[in-house]
């Protein structure tokens, strides 16, 4: 009869209203009505949603042990491949313009990522041959000024490998395994000074 559809619709909303209260769920369960697990919304500041391991927000540079032992060799592949061109690298050079080496590797003097342009697409991580850059999952980064706060310089980007293992255990495991394999391959056949690992 006319109006039945409207009443049935209002029944659905009333059931949802009851569902949000524990006593409501109890009543619904006694009436054998299938019940979901209550309110789906979470009050943000109090309870934060825990993100899965692969959640990615902004990139960060990985260093092993001390901040100056960073894996990045300033090869600028990520700067080239970054779709919105948000990475800007300047290689460390001495006065005569020859690249300076630390720990047997060249290193970036300046490594800026403009976080207001970066769209966290993870292509820099995919294309980096040295696993020097990874995606962070820390997302509470609001800032008031675009240029001063949102452009992360090298110092602000550097985070330790342990931090990487803490936030992304399985991913860190595969990365470490790959690095170990590469170290074993480069160390064993040549045996002398570790050559600069060339691109794949």
């Amino acid at each position, binding site marked *: 009869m006319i109006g039945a559809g409207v009443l049935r619709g209002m029944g659905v909303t009333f059931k949802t*209203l009851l569902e949000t*209260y524990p*006593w409501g769920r109890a009543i619904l369960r006694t009436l054998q009505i299938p019940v979901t697990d209550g*309110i789906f919304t979470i009050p943000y500041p109090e309870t934060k949603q825990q993100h899965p391991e692969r959640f990615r927000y902004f990139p960060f540079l990985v260093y092993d042990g001390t901040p100056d032992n960073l894996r990045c060799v300033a090869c600028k592949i990520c700067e080239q491949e970054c779709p919105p061109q948000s990475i800007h690298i300047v290689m460390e050079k001495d006065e005569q313009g020859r690249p300076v080496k630390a720990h047997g590797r060249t290193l970036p003097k300046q490594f800026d990522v403009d976080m207001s342009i970066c769209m966290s697409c993870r292509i820099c991580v995919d294309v980096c041959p040295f696993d020097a850059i990874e995606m962070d999952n820390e997302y509470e980064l609001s800032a008031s000024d675009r240029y001063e706060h949102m452009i992360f310089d090298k110092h602000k980007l550097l985070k330790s490998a342990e931090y990487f293992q803490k936030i992304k255990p399985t991913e860190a495991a595969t990365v470490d395994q790959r690095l170990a394999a590469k170290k074993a391959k480069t160390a064993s056949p040549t045996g002398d000074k570790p050559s600069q690992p060339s691109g794949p």
Partner: protein
Amino acid sequence: MNSLDQLFVNANAFLLGLLPVWARPWISILVRLSVIAVLAPAIMMYLTWIERKIIARMQNRFGPDRVGVYGLAQPLADGLKMLIKEDIVPRGADRLLHLAAPILSVVPAILLFAVLPFGRNMIPADLNVGLLYFFAVSSVGSYAIFMGGWASRSKFSILGAMRSVAQIISYEVPGVLSVVAVIMVTGTLSTAGIVEAQAERWFLFTPWGFVGCLMFFLSGVAEVNRTPFDMPEAESELVAGFHTEYSGMKFALWYMAEFLESFAVCAFTVTFFLGGWHAPAVPFWTLALLLAIIVGAGTRLAIPVRGAGVLAMLGAGALWGAQPIPSWIWFFAKTYALIFVLVWLRGTLPRLRIDQLMGLAWKFFLPLGLVNILAAGLWTQFPFPLGTAAAALLLIIAGWLLVRANAPQSLQPQRVYVFAD
């Protein structure tokens, strides 16, 4: 008359007793005015809180719970925000009308409280033409809406204003018709008299009363521009209808008018059809027993907790026996139950298009109202079994015929959908 029920009446009498005789009528008017002046904004503020909480719960979220515990201070925060907000008047607007419109819409909403029988002989102004007063005052609102829409000089406001005036006028007719049956049966226009007449049987439980209540409630909802009839402020089409160009305190006044009128509609439906402040005919102990069963069986809490709940309910039942629940609590309970239905409608239903809305008023409610008066006549003339049966039968047939005439496709079977590979 036990004390709790007449608490306010005795307090009022005691207060007036202290004064000299000549001052008493003035002071009693002053007391009633101040009660309404305090009651109305408080009701309005906590109506917004109730609505936001209930609709939030229907939508699987919490609703305001940041300001004060359970968000109880949220209405105060809203009110303060409205005060602080800048009051923008569009350049081309007619400033005087733009200011007068919200005031003109709030004043009738508050005036309606004068004839509301809150409890046994607790009626602010016992006019013997209470019902006529209700319809006269509530129709002033449509002037204010059109004035507001016209004064804002914006296309959306004008469209919204035109729609709302058409809607309000076309829904006053079924509203009045549905109450004519009540007047015919009770023979009095005074709201207090109508409530007296429902002492042993609420009008809702008569066939013509049931249809009348539905019609009065729905046309009241339409008059207040609430879903499913909120065409004038249809935010999806006309941004915000007639109060698009309002901000700050003026917008708060519009908001207050809307909520006060929706409270008044629910209160008057309770007065006319749900037995005003009368307690339901159900004896008090069955009520207590029912509550005890629910508490006992329903919740999955620990046994002792449930045991305590049951005892509490039985204790309350005993208390109710000695001291029945005061009349004004029944009035507010029923009114807030109807407000829950109002909010429930808003949380569920989409809105009707303007021409369907008009069609519903003129082609469905109007004839049904006339048939309803005929049914009420039948009900009064013939003794109990015959009268009710005849009235009910007449209404059902009329309803079915009207549905067939107005919305034939809704009776046809659902469309069948072809599945191709």
